[in-house]
């Protein structure tokens, strides 16, 4: 029996020795000297993934090194984001972040394993994504004002679907509830698609949805758009008023995307990345593709992005607190 386990024991010992020796890596030379990883903390095929792929493809050409998109999905982006926060700040690990990972999660999770402001170098604000408030075409409600009236008449009876508790779409609804002073029941789904299915089937009354998912149904006459959630009208839906102008002054709830790196990214690398991604964001091809997704390219300096992240964290903390949306 003793003899039988000699080789396995040897294997394990060898493994431990090699492990302890190889803890340290080497990285020098001019940046970038090897492929850059762009982590997406969500599954492939989603909006964040597609935007990361659009940007990384052109960024590869600019940097002369492949920028490889790697999906590390899980826990509304927490797993991938935490991984990047703990990676070396050498410019070889970037992260495509969202309003979810870098604004909402901070107040939703009391034990969030990263700080969206302090643990990251904010490289550039990539794009904004306004949402749109839609109802089924057969619904008699035609405007935000009528909706507020109807909700006040029947408190707690109208329903709105969302892509899940704590999603941007959910909190857009919570912000609407608190600013308009109405009581509408939140019905969470596992992602935007099943919620849309139930909206089309008339199971729920309304939904805040991403423009890219809602527009085809609006054009096909199956849904009515009541208002967009941005401060100015969306290029994709020029005839639809903003919710702010339609009856809830000051209302704004947008999803956004940006590129970050781990904290203390060396200044020359930060400047280079910011400059190149800004160039990419102005390429007509990239602008077109981002607009097709219902998003609007932003760009700008790292400082502008940091300020935005800080403002968003504060804004959503207030909404989360008021709505009582709780997660662990």
């Amino acid at each position, binding site marked *: 029996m003793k003899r039988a386990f000699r080789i396995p024991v040897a294997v394990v010992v060898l493994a431990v020795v090699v492990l302890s020796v190889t803890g340290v890596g080497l990285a020098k030379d001019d940046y970038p000297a090897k492929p850059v990883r762009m982590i997406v903390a969500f599954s492939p095929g989603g909006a964040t993934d597609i935007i990361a792929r659009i940007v990384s493809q052109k960024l590869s050409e600019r940097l002369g090194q492949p920028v490889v998109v790697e999906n590390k999905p899980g826990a509304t982006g927490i797993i991938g984001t935490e991984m990047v926060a703990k990676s070396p700040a050498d410019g070889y690990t970037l992260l495509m972040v969202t309003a979810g990972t870098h604004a909402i999660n901070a107040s939703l999770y009391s034990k969030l394993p990263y700080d969206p402001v302090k643990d990251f170098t904010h490289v550039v604000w990539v794009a904004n994504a306004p949402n749109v408030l839609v109802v089924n075409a057969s619904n008699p409600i035609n405007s935000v004002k009528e909706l507020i009236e109807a909700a006040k008449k029947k408190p707690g009876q109208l329903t709105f679907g969302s892509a899940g508790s704590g999603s941007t779409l959910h909190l857009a609804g919570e912000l609407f509830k608190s600013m308009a002073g109405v009581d509408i029941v939140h019905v969470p789904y596992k992602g935007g*698609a099943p919620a849309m299915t139930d909206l089309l089937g008339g*199971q729920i009354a309304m939904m805040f949805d991403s423009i890219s998912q809602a527009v085809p149904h609006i054009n096909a006459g199956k849904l009515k758009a009541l208002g967009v959630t941005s401060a100015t009208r969306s290029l994709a839906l020029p005839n639809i008023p903003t919710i702010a102008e339609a009856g809830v002054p000051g209302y704004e709830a947008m999803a956004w995307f940006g590129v970050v790196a781990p904290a203390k990214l060396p200044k020359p690398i930060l400047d280079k990345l910011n400059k190149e991604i800004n160039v990419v964001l102005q390429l007509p091809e990239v602008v077109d593709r981002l607009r097709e997704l219902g998003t609007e390219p932003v760009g700008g300096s790292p400082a502008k992005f940091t300020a935005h992240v800080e403002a968003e964290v504060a804004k959503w903390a207030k909404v989360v607190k008021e709505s009582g949306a709780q997660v662990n």
Partner: protein
Amino acid sequence: MSGMLGNLALGFGAALSPLNLLYAFFGALVGTLIGVLPGLGPIATIAMLLPVSYGLEPLTALIMLAGIFYGAQYGGSTTAILVNIPGESSSVVTCLDGYALARKGRAGPALGIAALSSLFAGFVATFIIALFGPVLAEWALKFGPAEYFSLMVLGLVAAVVLAHGSLLKAVAMVVLGLLLGLIGTDVNSGTMRFTFDLYALSDGIDFVVVAMGLFGFAEIISNLEQTSERQILAPKIQGVLPTWDDFRQCWKAVLRGTALGSFLGILPGGGATLSSFAAYTLEKKVARDPSRFGEGAIEGVAGPEAANNAGAQTSFIPLLTLGIPSNAVMALMLGAMTIHGITPGPQVMSEQPVLFWGMIASMLIGNLMLVLLNLPLISIWVRLLSVPYRLLYPAILLLCGIGIYSIKGNSFDVFLAAGFGLLGYVFRKLDCEPAPLLLGLILGPMMEEYLRRAMLLSQGNAAVFFTRPISLAMLLAAAVLLLLIVVPAVRTNREKAFQG
């Protein structure tokens, strides 16, 4: 009707271009090869090849991706039959009788029947899409949370039929599976349940992780218990192709499976996952001698494989006609369409008829190509089984490890799978079958989600389950099925008691 023929002609015109044929072939080939690797299912494969499709024409890209989807689906069944590892939920039931057949030396016929049933089902389902797609999609929207909950109840009752041992233990395994399925973030409240503060558990336990542990690793361990090499899998290979007897035995099963799968696939809220389970249950219930099931009944491969492929095909309906992805694979296809600047939705059919009908035509081509590709491969797969097990199992182990790791790029899942390997081994020793647990695992979260959503929408009135006709019909069907299961079981138990 003539309109459809015209449309199909338009579609074939586009899909039959040499370039598109080439990519359909490439997709089916790559899909099959990757699908055979344990753990790398259609989702991982399409995600990996998404960037490749950037440079292609939209139709060509979609044809290639759809080819990967069918290929991977079929490749998954191959692994299930050969080494008892279900790559995804639909191949769990293929393991039951497919692997039993392989152990009897009939892996070839099992693979052949699986391919041909899939081909038939794929053809029928494609015509259903072409003829009735939009109508069916509208109809499927009538399924609200109450209907889905009742469907899940029906599926749950059916799960018990999967086992061929003790009924009581099968029910307990289903409940255990339901509980395991609840691990992770609760959809309704956002609360993390049973995660022990591990973020890695917050999305629940991936199906593949559980399946590989319970089936794959447990199988390897118990195979290695045998003292001599010769007892482990060295079946005399009895024919590589199915015989006429096989066909006679299973053509009805193929028809039933196709009908069931086509129907369930249309439902965007998770019908397709149920299709293979439902077909297996149906076959076992209508069979004259149900005890053959689990011991290598060819209908137990044919029915579910047909249902699975039909369901996979008709699950394109919500995506193509409404722009709603009904599962993760369809979500990826939607992503691919978006990348190519196509906004999926009701307008695709009228605005881009070449794309729409080209896709449908390519489904027929893809299914045919898949069979042409796979029939010659069968003899290679069968020969693989004659490799000594002591060389085969380290390879299986390694491939499983890489496959599990690549699901999320996370080692945690690998450890979890080892844990389920232990559990699977213990359950084997205790005569508890893992298949009902897996179905419970799939149904658990969906069932709870639909139940609570239905109650939320009805403002707490449980009567919705009985006042909505579709829901009521399904609950009645579940009750009848339950009686069919329980009455004979009680009778045999009583007989046993009297004999004992």
